[in-house]
């Protein structure tokens, strides 16, 4: 019997194949029903394909079948972590079309509520991000405690914990409680302590720094090209803050500077948000100083609002970036066409560019650092 000498292995026989792993829509750290398919070589991400649309509800189309008061509720549901900011863009678009003069007190209260909502939204980010990075629950609970104080206040004002529907075209739904100022100050005190807690827990943590510094870098040019906005853009060093660059409400009367960072990495995106909480606290204090008694709705408001023909694009600085409402009116009590410009959707486009070439664990925290709200991405 002849035993054939086996041919030595050639390099080609050891060719490896990249592994595809499906992250989401059911995965603990996709922040909702986001799905991405990672192509990995060992632990390194070679390619990333995001899939969105699991939460599409047709919110914009629904708004076209509802009058201008009912549409406010749908705006809440597009951006449930910062519902006041979402409502604001909508009611300001309506006011711009109808040329309604909003009373001063209503504007100041709107500003206070929007900044408070920014605080609660950023705390939500900090908590979820801490869990993404791998601390077992502690930052989540710390953040939740601070967010809870803000949400309690919102509940006292609007009667709801998440879907406030408190802003109206022309002003506010009803007057705030009499102890409003004291309650806001209480919340600010606790939020200030919360920022300190996070500084101690995460910002100065060696492992946290090692995990986040230099990870998921995106340059200012790329970020602008992709259309990013909000803290994610400012972390790359672009001082674009709509509150400063094209002030709405009375932001031009307040004294503040957009917060930016140089690196454009995950750590900077975290730090910008943490500092924006302090900034918002400062802004609210300035607002409280200027808050006067007065009416909260204009004297002559029609019971059923009918807009003249026209179109308007109204954008504001929501916690996640530019939240815009494009509204076309052809007369009548409903918008003819409504389009929401979502900051999350634009920011999410940078995910692939930031994640490719990084480790799997990095892809998770990069996704976390963009701070997406899936109902805003899909609407």
């Amino acid at each position, binding site marked *: 019997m002849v035993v054939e000498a086996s041919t030595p292995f050639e390099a080609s026989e050891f060719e490896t194949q990249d592994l595809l792993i499906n992250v989401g829509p059911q*995965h603990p*750290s996709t922040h909702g029903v986001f799905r991405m398919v990672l192509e990995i070589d060992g*632990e390194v991400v070679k390619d990333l394909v995001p899939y969105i649309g699991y939460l599409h509800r047709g919110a914009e189309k629904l708004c076209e079948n509802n009058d201008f008061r009912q549409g406010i509720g749908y705006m809440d549901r597009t951006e449930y972590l910062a519902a006041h900011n979402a409502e604001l863009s909508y009611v300001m678009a309506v006011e711009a079309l109808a040329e309604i003069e909003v009373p001063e007190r209503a504007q100041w209260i709107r500003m206070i509520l929007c900044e408070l909502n920014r605080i609660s939204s950023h705390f939500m980010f900090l908590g979820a991000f801490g869990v993404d990075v*791998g*601390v077992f629950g502690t930052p989540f609970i710390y953040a939740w405690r601070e967010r809870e104080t803000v949400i309690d206040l919102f509940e006292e004002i609007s009667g709801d914990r998440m879907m406030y529907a408190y802003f109206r075209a022309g002003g506010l739904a009803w007057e705030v409680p009499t102890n409003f100022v004291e309650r806001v100050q209480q919340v600010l005190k606790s939020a200030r302590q919360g920022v300190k807690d996070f500084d101690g827990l995460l910002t100065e943590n060696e492992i946290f720094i090692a995990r986040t510094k*230099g990870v998921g870098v995106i340059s200012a040019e790329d970020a602008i090209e992709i259309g990013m906005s909000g803290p994610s853009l400012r972390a790359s060093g672009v001082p674009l803050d709509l509150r400063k660059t094209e002030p709405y409400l009375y932001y031009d009367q307040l004294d503040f500077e957009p917060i930016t960072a140089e690196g454009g990495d995950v750590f900077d995106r975290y730090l910008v948000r943490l500092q924006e909480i302090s900034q918002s606290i400062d802004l609210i204090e300035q607002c409280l100083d200027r808050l006067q008694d007065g009416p909260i709705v204009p004297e002559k408001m029609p019971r059923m609002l009918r807009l003249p023909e026209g179109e308007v694009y109204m954008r504001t600085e929501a916690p996640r970036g530019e939240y815009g409402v494009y509204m076309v009116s052809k007369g009548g009590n409903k918008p003819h066409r409504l389009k929401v410009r979502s900051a999350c959707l634009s920011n999410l486009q940078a995910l692939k560019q930031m994640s490719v070439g990084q*480790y799997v664990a*990095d892809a998770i925290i990069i996704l976390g650092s963009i701070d997406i709200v899936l109902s805003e991405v899909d609407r």
Partner: protein
Amino acid sequence: MSTEIFGIEDVNVWVDALIRVLLVVGFMTVVVMGLIWIERKVLARFQQRLGPTRTGPIGLLQSVADALKLVGKEDLRPRNADPWTFELAPYLVFIPVFLGFVIVPFVLDWQIRILELGLLYFVAVSGVNIVGWIMAGWGSDNRYAMIGGMRAAAQGISYELPLVLSLLAVAMVVEVPGTDASAEAARGSLNLNEIVASQHEVPNIVWQPLVTVVFFIAALAELNRTPFDIPVGESEVVGGPFVEYSGIRWSMFFLAEYAALLIMALVFAAVFLGGWAWPFGIWMDDAPPRWAQALVVAGKASLFIFLVIWVRASVPRLRIDQLMGFSWKILLPLMLVQVLVNGLVLVYDWPEIILTVVGLFGIVALFAMVERAVRHPRPRPMTAAQLQGEAAS
């Protein structure tokens, strides 16, 4: 062959061993369930929660309730899973962990077996469960599980080295007292009872501060605890090798994890904190009662467990490259230097205070190296542009 247990003479060694094993394993399983409750309570306190409160007084029966629920659950096996690998994996994690109890010195002269090479035995059996992890990861036919299993293997092997070296550093220099106070002391022992007895005056943590720290870190990694929990990282691989397990098999993994924590705590107490010997001493005229010794050992082990939970509540998870780099570039060289120093002390009979000084310098060096690694991270594996260039060429 016969031996003596609980004052009864002439007991067959096999019967004796069986009694001891059943006692220890039965008792330890209860302790492990208590441990799960303690972890949940302590962790809850760190997070300003209450933890379990509803089952029994202050939630004491929570683990029992969980265990009953898990036993009652359906034992699922994915259709594509490898039946043998999948179903045997929990045993390969579970059994080696409980084998470790054989050498744990609870009190003076009472344990399952006093082995001359006890420490070697402990290191040997505690390494076996990595096989179980890989089997669980591979057999589940799930990609998360496979990544988790591979991570577990890489991590287990990497951190075994600093762990073994730290135990070796202690074992080579301990001064084993003779059978009575007047006898000449011998140096070096792998017998855990002798190591404990050698610390009747000063525990090893004083002579070997660096080794203690390194052992603690390596133990965290061996136990897959935060910050080294990447094999089971919830936010990345969703539970890693356990992702497809349910019911009783999953609870076996869980039980093994906490049993391993308990053994590691007891070994830490024995090797570094003086076990039952310190602060009682062993040559006192009236030896302290066994319950007092057991309480001291339990207190020392609790300290270790509390530290582990504390770390879990406060630090994020490391990345795989940082994890490996930390072991191979920082812990291993430090331990090699420490072993060298210990060898010099042993050969030239230098005073032991040198060990303390070197150890304290070693801790400073450890912090400096970590600081440097954080400030000057390694370059990223590949940028997106490089990857595209590679694909184009």
